[in-house]
């Protein structure tokens, strides 16, 4: 069966520090991968998605970037965090054969 791992679960970072959140998927190959952010009291905002290694589509221009160095690995990064980057970050995957998106457990990021 397929599983998705996302870490860390919680992160507290000072303003101006770098960020690296990692997501990996097991049990499937060539998944579509996604990064979402849920700000307090708001819905899911799509940040990036990827259909293959090195292929990244950005939905919202901002202080973040994403990379997909391996087929089942998706990384969300920032060189310098802003206060507005605080939120709940979710990684998800889907396949072309099935119209369902599966989510990781999420990372609570607090930028202070």
């Amino acid at each position, binding site marked *: 069966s397929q599983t998705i791992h996302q870490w860390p679960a919680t992160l507290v970072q000072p303003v101006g520090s770098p960020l690296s959140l990692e997501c990996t998927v097991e049990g499937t190959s060539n998944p*579509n991968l996604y990064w*979402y952010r849920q700000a307090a009291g708001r*819905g899911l905002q799509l940040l990036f998605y990827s259909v293959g290694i090195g292929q990244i589509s950005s939905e919202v221009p901002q202080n973040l970037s994403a990379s997909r160095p391996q087929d089942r690995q998706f990384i969300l990064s920032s060189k310098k965090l802003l206060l507005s980057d605080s939120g709940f970050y979710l990684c*998800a995957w*889907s396949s072309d054969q099935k*119209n*369902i998106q599966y*989510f990781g*457990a*999420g990372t609570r990021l607090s930028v202070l």
Partner: protein
Amino acid sequence: DQQVKQNSPSLSVQEGRISILNCDYTNSMFDYFLWYKKYPAEGPTFLISISSIKDKNEDGRFTVFLNKSAKHLSLHIVPSQPGDSAVYFCAAKRAGNQFYFGTGTSLTVIP
């Protein structure tokens, strides 16, 4: 531009009664619709889905209804249980890889 909308941010229902969560969409190209359930500090979990060729899909206590002419879908939970208390997101998909989510409805089932 919010293509999937959940206009009720919250809903309270007595245990045993029916919960009805609503969702509206604007893009007529959407052909697949999903509902997710989310507890605090956890990722959303898939609940139920429906293809645009159907108008109803049922799975145990959960039923999703789709009205294509009105661009409206709803999730019915019968009977509601306290464990159903969570945030519910509707989502829509068209050809391609993107899923479009609503802003969520927080359901509270009162024992």
